[in-house]
């Protein structure tokens, strides 16, 4: 008995939905990656607090985007090729990623409550409003701005908000001394930081490949496969490039720089994970790995204290990734990319700065100096992350 088109459509609907759900679940899993990365890169006295922040920011992102953000960003979405719920779920996990970026940059000194309030504003308004301009089909989309999976819309936006916060917050106590002295503040748990990076790398396949939004159809299928390969290639070369630079410059393999290098490769390829060849993707990743080290080094000298390197990894490299789109995507134009970068970074930075400033005036942004010394774990959570282990208290 010959069958009707509809049976195939139904199957295609199921497959596309499943593909999107699995991709989204992988992005959700990135929340764990950020949590582990940040928990490993802060001092042990601030570990429990950063875990609380990461758990709650994801939760708040889900609620705010459900209540307000999704509609703001996409209006009434029609998704004939897959279940509407799958579409929502894939979008919601992206918001959380943008927010995770911020928590790392402001770590070890920001008040938990102020952070959570900012989180509501970010996930309910700042993110979805700018998202509507591009992915939602607004003026940036019309201007030809191309950002496939969100080097700008997610990463740069998160990093710009983080930068505004860091500027208003100031560096951690003991980070910078007189006459330009810079004191490193090593993170307490390198295996956690590495685990977090591996989780992010793994989850990023969902981030980039899922952004094709449809799996069926030869072109779509090939695009999804290409996104996997390119994402992986860029992360690999990002890590290698970071290693080569640190080995050449300092004679040592600086683990956390290598982790940042891999993440930089991932951020850079996110703007166009489908169009480059694997070789070009590798080159883009390598460039990101070099750039991120320069950027971290430079921000350090500018006394912008970012404990996990989030502003460099997601902001500076996000811009680079958006520009690199023109190397592979014939439809992308440098001008449109520059406009997009300016609009996204400007919007996110400006509005965030206002919100942070209001918070600073009302609830206060920064924990008390004494609390910062003792650690946010005790002051904000009343608990230690590793209560049984004798630790060297670092200032």
């Amino acid at each position, binding site marked *: 008995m010959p069958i009707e088109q509809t049976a195939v459509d139904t199957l295609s609907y199921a497959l596309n939905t499943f593909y999107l759900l699995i991709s989204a679940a992988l992005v959700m899993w990135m929340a764990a990656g950020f949590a582990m990365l940040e928990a490993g890169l802060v001092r042990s006295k601030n570990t429990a607090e950063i875990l609380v922040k990461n758990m709650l920011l994801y939760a708040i992102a889900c609620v705010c985007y459900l209540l307000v953000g999704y509609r703001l960003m996409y209006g009434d979405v029609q998704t004939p090729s897959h279940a509407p719920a799958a579409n929502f779920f894939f979008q919601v996990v992206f918001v959380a990623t943008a927010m995770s970026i911020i928590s790392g940059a402001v770590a070890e000194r920001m008040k938990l409550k102020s952070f959570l309030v900012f989180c509501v504003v970010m996930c309910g308004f700042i993110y979805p409003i700018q998202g509507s301009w591009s992915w939602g089909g607004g003026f940036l989309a019309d201007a030809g701005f191309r950002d496939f999976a969100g080097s700008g819309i997610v990463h740069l936006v998160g990093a710009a908000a983080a930068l505004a916060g860091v500027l208003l917050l100031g560096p951690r106590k003991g980070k910078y001394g007189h006459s330009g002295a810079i004191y490193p503040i090593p993170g307490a748990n390198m295996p956690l930081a590495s685990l977090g990076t591996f989780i992010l790398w793994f989850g990023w396949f969902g981030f980039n490949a899922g952004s094709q939004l449809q799996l069926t159809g030869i072109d779509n299928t090939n695009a999804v496969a290409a996104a996997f390969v390119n994402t992986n290639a860029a992360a690999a070369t990002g890590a290698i490039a970071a290693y080569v630079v640190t080995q050449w410059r300092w004679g040592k393999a600086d683990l956390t720089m290598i982790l940042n290098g891999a993440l930089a490769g991932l951020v850079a390829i996110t703007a166009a994970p489908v169009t480059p060849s694997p070789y070009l993707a590798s080159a883009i990743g390598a460039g990101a790995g070099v750039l991120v080290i320069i950027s971290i080094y430079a921000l350090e000298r500018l006394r912008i204290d970012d404990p996990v390197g989030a502003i460099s990894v997601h902001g500076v490299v996000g811009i680079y990734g958006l520009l690199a789109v023109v190397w592979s995507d014939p439809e992308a134009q440098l001008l449109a990319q520059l406009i997009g970068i300016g609009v996204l970074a400007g919007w996110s930075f400006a509005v965030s700065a206002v919100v942070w400033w209001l918070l600073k005036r009302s609830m206060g942004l920064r924990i008390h100096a004494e609390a910062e010394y003792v650690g946010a774990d*005790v002051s904000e959570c*009343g*608990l230690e992350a590793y209560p049984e282990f*004798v630790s*060297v*208290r670092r*200032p």
Partner: protein
Amino acid sequence: MQLVIAIIKPSKLTDVRDALAAVGCRGMTVTEVRGFGRQQGHTELYRGAEYRIDLLPKLRLDIAVTDPQLNAVIDAIVEAAHSGQTGDGKVFVMPLLQAIRIRTGEINANAI
């Protein structure tokens, strides 16, 4: 010779070390300890149950000094470790009968 034992707040280590260097004392041994005294600990919360932490982190410095150095060392510590808040710590002085540098076998004043 005397052995000076100083119990200080961990945050004062750098200050004390600098103050000691200023009076010509360049060696010491540092131990992580927990102190119990008048200083009130803080309250922690675990799964809805509150409890006090009253063994507080302190550092113990052991510094062997020659008799002429003694007062300068004590003063340096007391000044550098002082914050005026309960829990600043103590300095204890004990007699030291012999000191030997393992590397060279030098003894007493030469060993410090």
